[in-house]
């Protein structure tokens, strides 16, 4: 009988994050290390930590892991690896080395599935040029997998949440909807074809986006994952002291995302993210409820939200599309800091 990893969990992917408000509360009480070589620290809640080695070289460190988002172990490995590596790309870095982090119900699943997850991880990492040189596994009822990744970046080319500027344009490189579709598929509200499309997107590395950010001198970006488009947009806006304006009708969506959300398939993470974000968000008058909730859908291995100079945005977008990021789109703009950090428009 074919293994279905989803039987081991009732919440998957980045929907398994602890509510952001609680997380911030806990983290705020921990000491923040002081070292003049720390270029990006925990207190700015960025995608990774960055540590300068020389004037031209800095280390990028990040980790991510989560329970299964799909039935097949190999695919799960691929998606988890892509998701973990993504944060290095979001900093403008080149991922290089990684360690496996695995929790596995050894008594309940055959070891060949354990191997399959790792194989998926290895293959995706190899695609990114990442060498997995170690790792750690423990026994656990619910399987979980991901990587701790180390990359490198030239400090002069570092891309952070604090690098956005008023007057820039927002580009999203991958369509939204993975949280909604995964939930909808599990509930039998949508078919395999739609789930396959979602899984394909989750496997896509953000390497193309990262290379183009470097080419066009982008300094502000983040990747869209567990806090949803709105949550990550707010972190960016806060760190850069600007306001973001997003037009939901321009945001690319995976097929069936709108229909599923409109039928009520709104995963719990949507509401958690909404609660965390709402004080910093203003919805436009008459904004469609479903489109608005999609902005809060937790994504797994989502795209990059790139803050591009207005005069470079079109060419950057054209290149993204021609290089294979076919759903990439301009979704809004950045203004100087207004009353709210994020404005969601139709």
């Amino acid at each position, binding site marked *: 009988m074919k293994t279905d990893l989803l039987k081991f969990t009732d919440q998957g992917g980045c929907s398994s994050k602890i509510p952001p408000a609680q997380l911030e509360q806990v983290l705020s009480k921990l000491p923040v290390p002081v070292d003049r070589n720390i270029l990006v620290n925990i207190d700015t809640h960025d995608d990774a930590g960055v540590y300068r080695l020389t004037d031209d070289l800095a280390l990028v460190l990040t980790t991510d892991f989560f329970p299964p988002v799909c039935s097949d172990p190999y695919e799960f490995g691929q998606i988890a690896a892509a998701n973990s590596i993504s944060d290095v790309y979001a900093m403008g870095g080149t991922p290089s080395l990684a360690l496996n982090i695995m929790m596995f119900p050894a008594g309940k699943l055959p070891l060949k599935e354990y191997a399959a997850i790792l194989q998926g991880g290895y293959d995706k990492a190899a695609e990114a040029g990442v060498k997995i040189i170690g790792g750690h596994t423990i026994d656990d009822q619910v399987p979980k997998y991901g990587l701790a990744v180390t990359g490198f970046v030239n400090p002069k080319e570092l891309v952070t949440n604090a690098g956005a500027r008023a007057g820039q344009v927002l580009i999203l490189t991958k369509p939204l909807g993975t949280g909604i579709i995964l939930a909808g598929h599990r509930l039998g509200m949508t078919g395999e074809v739609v789930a396959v499309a979602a899984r394909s997107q989750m496997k896509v590395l953000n390497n193309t986006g990262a290379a183009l950010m470097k080419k066009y001198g982008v300094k502000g970006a983040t990747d869209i994952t567990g806090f949803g488009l709105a949550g990550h947009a707010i972190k960016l806006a806060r760190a850069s002291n600007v306001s973001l304006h997003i037009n939901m009708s321009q945001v690319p969506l995976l097929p069936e995302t709108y229909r599923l959300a*409109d*039928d*009520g398939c709104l995963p*719990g993470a949507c*509401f958690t993210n909404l609660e965390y974000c709402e004080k910093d968000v203003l919805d436009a008058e008459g904004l469609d*409820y479903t489109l608005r909730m999609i902005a809060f859908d937790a994504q797994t291995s989502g795209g990059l939200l790139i803050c591009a100079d207005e005069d470079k945005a079109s060419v950057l977008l054209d290149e993204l599309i021609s290089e294979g990021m076919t759903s990439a789109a301009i979704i809004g703009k950045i203004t100087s800091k207004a009353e709210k950090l994020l404005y969601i428009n139709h």
Partner: protein
Amino acid sequence: MHIVDTRGERCPRPIIETKKALKEVREGESFTVLTDNKTSFNNISRFLNDNKIGFSVTEKDGVWTFVVSGSGSDKTLTEAESYCELPSEMPVSGNWAIAVTSDVMGYGDDTLGRRLIKSFFVAVSCLDNLPSVIAFYNAGVKLAVEGTETVEILKELESKGVELILCGTCTDYFKLDGVLSAGKTGDMYQIMQKLSSAAKVIRP
């Protein structure tokens, strides 16, 4: 009443079922949603509030029961002719009547009495079960004169479907022709007919 039982289900199933029920029930029809999951209780509440759907919810033994109004967003009636229909939230008129025998309430001090009768009508207008008719005679008809403190409350009661009958003999006696802003005049026979067919008559 249609019952949506989502006990044992985790998000987003309860929201999906609630949304489905909203699409299926008839206009104005309510339905019940049950959940035993705190997260679902929070999320359903949020979903209904954000979509401006009226509901009430109670909790007992770890089960939340929502009663959801199936009629969707608020029903402010803005067309003039809409006022000819009874809005569904209007209180149902009961079979009782009020006989207003003076422009003061009670005996002993008329200044106090005038204050009391105004409060009386304010209190009547707050009732869920409004009287079907209010009859005014002797000095009571003066309460319907334009510009008085009481006439506005009487007009409001009238707009909610309460019939106001003013004794014609009395309005003539006090020469109030042309200065009345609420109610319709009627004769003693009409007043008696209304009062005698009421199950209960209150006199302030």
